[in-house]
């Protein structure tokens, strides 16, 4: 039944948004984590989303659905590190300063991360609502003929 598939789809959406929220939390927590060289410093992380395509070999004979173009949920392909420029700051008193007096700060844009956080939490909310109304629909179907 296709209604029960909604739970998988919304579940995958919630999962993806949770990963995104996790990376945002990590970025914000490490926004001020300084390091003494460009290699060691924390870099902003971002989740990459992609639609899950149904298996082309998995033809459903009951509905004759070739299923090639219909997607079923979202997946997190991976987490990439941002290649935005790092922020070297001249702070000779800093214990982590290198021999030229520079400390490297992460390339995390706090404003960007905040808007990312709001977007992720809204999208999560939408998926919860979709799942809730799907639940109501299924419960309603169970009462048929009563």
């Amino acid at each position, binding site marked *: 039944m296709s209604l029960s598939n909604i739970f998988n789809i919304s579940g995958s959406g919630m999962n993806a948004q949770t990963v995104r929220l996790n990376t945002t939390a990590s970025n914000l927590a490490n926004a001020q984590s300084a390091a003494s060289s460009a290699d060691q410093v924390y870099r902003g992380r971002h989740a990459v989303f992609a639609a899950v395509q149904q298996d082309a070999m998995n033809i459903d004979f009951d509905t*004759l659905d070739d299923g090639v173009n219909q997607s079923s949920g*979202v997946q997190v392909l991976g987490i990439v590190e941002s290649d935005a420029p790092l922020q070297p700051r001249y702070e000779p008193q800093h214990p982590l300063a290198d021999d030229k007096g520079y400390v490297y700060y992460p390339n995390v844009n706090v404003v960007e991360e905040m808007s990312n956080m709001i977007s992720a939490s809204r999208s999560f909310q939408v998926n919860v609502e979709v799942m809730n109304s799907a639940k109501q629909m299924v419960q309603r179907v169970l009462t*048929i003929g009563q």
Partner: protein
Amino acid sequence: MAINFQAALGVHESALKIRAQRAEVLADNLANADTPNYKARDLDFKSMLQQQDQAQNRGLEMQTSSAGHRDGGATLFSSDQLLYRTPQAPSADGNTVEGHVEHAKYMENALAFQSSFTLLNGKFKGLMTAIRGE
């Protein structure tokens, strides 16, 4: 006189089925609201209902030349019936899902599902009354 379920239930059975399928497609759009290059999809309810209606009446015409062949009769829901939505304001990442539009369609579809269900349930109740003869 035998009770013919197909005649008794009318269009509501197919309508409910298509509403459930559409809910799935719209849920998929909402789940992929932040996926780059994802294209929002939807079903045309009217044409699908017409097609289901015809398919129910005559079945799918399939030629069989051997006893082992399938005789058709399946309902057709192939991916070419899934249409692409034209976005009002396309975004830079190639995603055509607009949260408010999809949300509204999803809610509308859920309400239509409820009304289809209520009508179908009424048909069942009518049949029950006829069977009990009360």
